[in-house]
């Protein structure tokens, strides 16, 4: 991309060509951070729902002044510039031009409205792969919004998986499923670049584009070294003496991906922690970070019984925290596998209120496919 950007920049500055980025990320602000890091100032349009119906990325399309596609890759080589091959070319004006397609997507003012519309599409034709993918993406978008329902993430995975089952050649769909799924045998560096980008931007004196949703551990090739370093080796509250939080301060939900695995499969479990706005709860970052401890039943394996969610940099903060970890089920698993666990964290009540150390019991239940 930096090479293209350098080649196009003189033509952009001369007003002879415009460049627009269309990003296929579920979380498009991550693409904005990427472009900031690369010093690229193109407008960015988000196609999280894959409305363009593409099977893979990247794709670079050269479009003439009338909106007609002329090339599907940048027409430049060692001997010819993009000016010679495309930008300075004259193309015939077509007899008519298609109008802007406002579609029905603009009429959705909430993710719930989008989900209801896509649910109707899927009910009309359950084998409509793009509709299944859009529905999954809308569920995940609602999960990350104020409209969220605790089952949204699991519903997203269910519809993405169904879409990929209908058409296994859709690379974008496959990556969306893998992004949140179990760590792959050959781990894929989905968002490892974010750590480098933030460091470089800070060194440049720039404020990185803030992300609405921080990538979870499954989205990195390498686990977070800060979290690994803080994980306790022994159970932190074996006698259950720490006072409980039943959700007054921190709400917790857990989602397994895939939602209904086969016996013997590995599952990625995502646990989300949200401060309760009703009690004005917030994280106390001057103390130890959140620790999640689990006690898997016999035959169920996890890499570590302890997982840590690092603190934010500020003394207090309100962010949603997530942890995720792989669980491998035994080949003999049947019915429902339950993994008891608990989180320990430092939380404060109200502004300038009391700060406490609390335990929140969590049981993850994974139904196994018959």
């Amino acid at each position, binding site marked *: 991309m930096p090479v293209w950007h350098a080649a196009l920049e003189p033509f952009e500055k001369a007003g002879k*060509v415009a460049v627009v980025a269309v990003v296929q990320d579920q979380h498009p602000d991550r693409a904005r951070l990427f472009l900031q890091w690369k010093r690229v100032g193109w407008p960015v349009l988000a196609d999280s729902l894959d409305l363009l119906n593409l099977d893979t990325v990247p794709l670079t399309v050269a479009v003439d002044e009338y909106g007609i596609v002329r090339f599907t890759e940048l027409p430049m080589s060692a001997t010819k510039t993009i000016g010679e091959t495309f930008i300075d070319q004259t193309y015939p004006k077509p007899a008519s031009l298609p109008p802007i397609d406002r579609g029905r997507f603009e009429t959705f003012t909430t993710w719930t409205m989008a989900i209801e519309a896509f649910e109707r599409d899927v009910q009309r034709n359950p084998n409509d792969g793009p509709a299944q993918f859009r529905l999954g993406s809308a569920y995940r978008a609602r999960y990350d919004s104020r409209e969220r329902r605790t089952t949204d993430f699991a519903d997203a995975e269910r519809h993405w998986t169904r879409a990929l089952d209908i058409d296994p050649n859709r690379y974008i769909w496959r990556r969306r499923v893998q992004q949140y799924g179990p760590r792959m045998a050959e781990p894929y560096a989905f968002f490892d670049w974010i750590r480098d980008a933030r460091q470089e931007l800070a060194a440049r004196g720039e404020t990185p584009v803030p992300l609405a949703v921080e990538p979870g551990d499954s989205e990195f090739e390498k686990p977070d070294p800060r979290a690994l370093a803080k994980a306790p080796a022994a159970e932190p509250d074996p006698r259950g003496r720490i006072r409980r939080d039943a959700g007054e301060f921190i709400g917790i939900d857990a989602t397994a991906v895939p939602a209904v695995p086969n016996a013997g499969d590995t599952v990625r479990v995502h646990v989300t922690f949200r401060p309760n706005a009703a009690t004005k709860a917030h994280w106390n970052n001057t103390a130890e970070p959140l620790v999640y401890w689990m006690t898997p039943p016999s035959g169920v394996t996890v890499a570590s019984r302890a997982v840590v969610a690092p603190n934010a940099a500020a003394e207090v903060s309100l962010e949603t925290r997530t942890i995720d970890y792989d669980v491998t089920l035994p080949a003999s698993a049947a019915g429902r596998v339950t993994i008891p666990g608990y989180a320990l964290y430092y939380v404060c009540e109200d502004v300038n209120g009391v700060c406490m150390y609390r335990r929140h019991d969590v049981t993850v239940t994974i139904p196994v496919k018959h």
Partner: protein
Amino acid sequence: MKLAAALALLAALAAQPAKPKPIWARNNPLPTGFNPGEAFPTIALPSAVDGRPTSVAEFRGKKLIVNIFASW
């Protein structure tokens, strides 16, 4: 002897079946609107900055490069 072994290895490698294409290789034709001579899709997509629906057709009147990618 070493040369003979190297030649044998080369012959064995040449006899290997071609590595299968990854499942995600672009083996599907591009959908309508992405092939030369076709009108690029005019569907409005939300701006990643402020959510304002924007169509690529709004850039008409100037040559345009559409760079479609994902940050993963």
